[in-house]
């Protein structure tokens, strides 16, 4: 009977244990203080209950020592909780090196998943255990929030922006995937499953499903179809900058200032090219808003990420089925 009545969520990622430890500590602390307060109140209320209507207790004005006690002790406790919880949080924000990358687009009311190896899924996400997985999230309409309770991860998917989160599954299994940010009529229907598999099984899954086009390849195709190439060529006289080796590098902008070319910057360069103009170029690049979907932008992004700096130019886009973590060090601040 109790299988259908769980009282505690499954713990299936590396951070789950850390979150639960924090939780249990706080539960213990809360139990202590709640019982302390309830105990004090009830004890005094019974011990000093009114025995005759004309009772008149002695006045007590207060005590500085006590005030300081119950200011400083809680203060110490909360500072401790803050430091602990901030550490856990920082670990969640900071994506480890060489993760497996997956793109996720929220759309009312489904989750569209795009593996860098070409597989596409809807409301399903297959991942291997033991590998850090980085999700790049965005939305085509309103705000959604990607939530897998068993992994203790949650991150809002915002329209017009990228947000990343990561996790590393520790236990094979099927886990709930929820949309946690209210997004309209079928908010509660925007759910699915995350399937965590042993790496070997995962390889089999990758091989088994008819893979779609690898995003980087799709991106390359788009890069030609949308005529990006006409401006972005590797020759010196090109109208636009060479994009090889761009990802992760530091770009000098017109009017001074620099920006690190991360996902967000490249996305912005495509939909809002004039927001940040590269030094030495004219703001002539047209916006592609409305012409490319979020999926396609992610494909373009994958393609641009796959373009290595000239020295290592030969590296091909990751082949279907390869789990090869990408070469860029995306964690470098």
């Amino acid at each position, binding site marked *: 009977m109790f299988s259908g009545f769980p009282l505690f969520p499954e713990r299936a990622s590396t951070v789950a244990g850390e979150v639960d430890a924090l939780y249990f500590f706080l539960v213990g602390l809360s139990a202590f203080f709640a019982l302390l307060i309830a105990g004090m109140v009830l004890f005094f209320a019974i011990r000093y209950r009114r025995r005759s209507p004309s009772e008149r207790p002695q006045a007590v004005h207060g005590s500085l020592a006590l005030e300081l006690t119950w200011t400083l002790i809680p203060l110490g406790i909360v500072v401790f909780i803050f430091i602990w919880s901030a550490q856990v949080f920082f670990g969640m924000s900071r994506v480890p090196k060489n993760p497996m990358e997956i793109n996720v687009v929220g759309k009312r009311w489904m989750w569209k998943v795009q593996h860098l190896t070409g597989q596409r899924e809807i409301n399903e996400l297959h991942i291997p255990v033991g590998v850090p997985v980085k999700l790049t999230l965005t939305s085509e309409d309103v705000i959604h929030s990607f939530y897998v309770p068993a992994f203790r991860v949650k991150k809002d998917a915002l329209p017009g922006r990228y947000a990343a989160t990561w996790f590393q599954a520790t236990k094979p299994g099927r886990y709930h995937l929820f949309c946690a940010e209210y997004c309209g009529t079928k908010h509660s229907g925007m759910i699915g499953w995350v399937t965590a598999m042993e790496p070997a099984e995962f390889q089999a899954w990758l091989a088994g499903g008819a893979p779609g086009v690898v995003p980087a390849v799709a991106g390359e195709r788009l890069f030609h179809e949308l005529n990006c190439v006409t401006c972005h060529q590797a020759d010196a006289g090109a109208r636009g900058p060479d994009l090889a080796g761009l990802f992760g590098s530091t770009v000098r902008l017109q009017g001074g200032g620099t920006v690190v070319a991360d996902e967000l910057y490249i996305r912005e360069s495509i939909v809002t090219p004039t927001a940040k103009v590269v030094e030495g170029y004219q703001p002539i690049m047209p916006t592609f808003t409305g012409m490319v979907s979020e999926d396609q932008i992610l494909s373009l992004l994958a393609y641009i990420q796959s373009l290595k700096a000239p020295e290592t130019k030969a590296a091909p886009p990751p082949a279907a089925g390869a789990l090869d973590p990408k070469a860029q060090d995306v*964690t470098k601040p």
Partner: protein
Amino acid sequence: MHEQHVVSPRIYFAIFAALLLLTLVTVQVAAIDLGEPEIFFGKRVPLNVVVALVIACVKAVLVILFFMHVKYSPRLTQLVIGAAFVWLFILLAVTLSDYWSRGWVGGNPGT
């Protein structure tokens, strides 16, 4: 404190002249490019904006102190105005600190 403090009209005219002058200055300065030196924690600061804001603040303070008699008002009134601007500062500064610190954590564009 219910007696009104009567300010001489001369002061009003002086303030009026100062305000006009400052308006002129701010318009003139806006036409010159003062550049954006890196003077704030290595960040670039557009000096034109700084100058325009400082002038606007000076003008506002003049209006508040003299036209609105706050220079001669009780402390409580001054406190109320002070509080309003402190709260405004909280709203602006704390929100902007979010935008300021976006992207500081490596590998994660969303934060």
